[in-house]
């Protein structure tokens, strides 16, 4: 996994972003130089089974989209580094899912749990499995948000409720609704992986 210290620090990140938003023409290039290779390295480490070409393509897309439309990034919600990593990772998953739709699934694939809590950095990701990637592509946006939280090992019900827009419910109903959603997602992935339990 790419070491955080190798990425631009917060001050540098803020400086680059400020230049971009101020309309400096060369800020695009500075950001590309800063992030392009690091994003590729990050994707390669996080998804070791993904082809290098796909990692490059995903990093390209994330960065091109951001540079073409910087207003889509809200600095109050997420740091630029986290935003670009997540964006690149989702672009990679899109590419993997697209590839999976055009490729027969290998029956030799090892079914892995979706939950990544116990994975150590650099291990294979279940999302490298085309069946999982295809299932992920079919999730509704808020379900993807829930899955991301599950993958991060988040246990706080309110975080899930926020993603699902359920914060207005009573604590009990909120908990029940979150549990239903998490169970449903787990079952979908279990089915996709051939687990009929």
């Amino acid at each position, binding site marked *: 996994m790419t070491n955080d210290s190798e990425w631009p620090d917060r001050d540098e990140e803020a400086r680059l972003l400020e230049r971009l938003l101020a309309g400096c023409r060369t800020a695009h*290039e500075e950001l590309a*130089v800063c992030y392009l290779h690091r994003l590729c390295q990050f994707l390669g480490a996080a998804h070791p089974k993904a082809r290098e070409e796909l990692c490059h393509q995903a990093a390209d897309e994330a960065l091109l*989209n951001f*540079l073409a439309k910087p207003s889509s990034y809200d600095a109050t*919600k997420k740091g630029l580094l986290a935003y670009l990593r997540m964006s*690149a990772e989702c672009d990679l998953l899109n590419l993997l899912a697209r590839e999976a739709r055009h490729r027969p699934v290998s029956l030799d694939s090892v079914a892995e749990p979706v939950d990544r809590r116990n994975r150590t950095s650099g291990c294979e990701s279940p999302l490298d499995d085309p069946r999982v990637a295809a299932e992920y592509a079919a999730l509704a946006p808020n379900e*993807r948000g829930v899955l991301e939280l599950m993958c991060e090992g988040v246990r706080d019900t309110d975080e899930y409720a926020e*993603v699902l827009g359920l914060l207005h419910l009573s604590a009990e109903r909120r908990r029940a609704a979150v549990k239903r959603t998490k169970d449903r997602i787990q079952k979908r992935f279990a089915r996709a992986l051939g687990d009929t339990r």
Partner: protein
Amino acid sequence: MNDQMFESAADPHMERFAHRASANPAFLGWQLAAFARARGFDDAALAGYLECAPAVLAHVRVCGPIRADHRRADVTEVASKFGLNPVRLAEAAKPVPAEPSAGDTEPDPAPAGAFLAARDRTDAS
């Protein structure tokens, strides 16, 4: 000239990134590509015209486009950084019909069913 400074541009991934950027009106590469097509220039000829090394071109292409209303400042900024001939850069980056306005210039929306790629989570729910 800043050739030494941009040695890393020889790296194929940056070159490819620059070519992809050139297909997007949010980048200077879009304007340069239109100019090169009109003149029948390949990369070497375009670099020669701008008076820079071919390796520098990739970095120039991923800059923001020259804006009609900030023409002089934009040309000066880019030309100074990369050691280009500013007069020729101004000529090469004349506005083309699809030139975007500054800021939001994403040309194509994501296809239906695609991940939101964390670009705007609030829009997702």
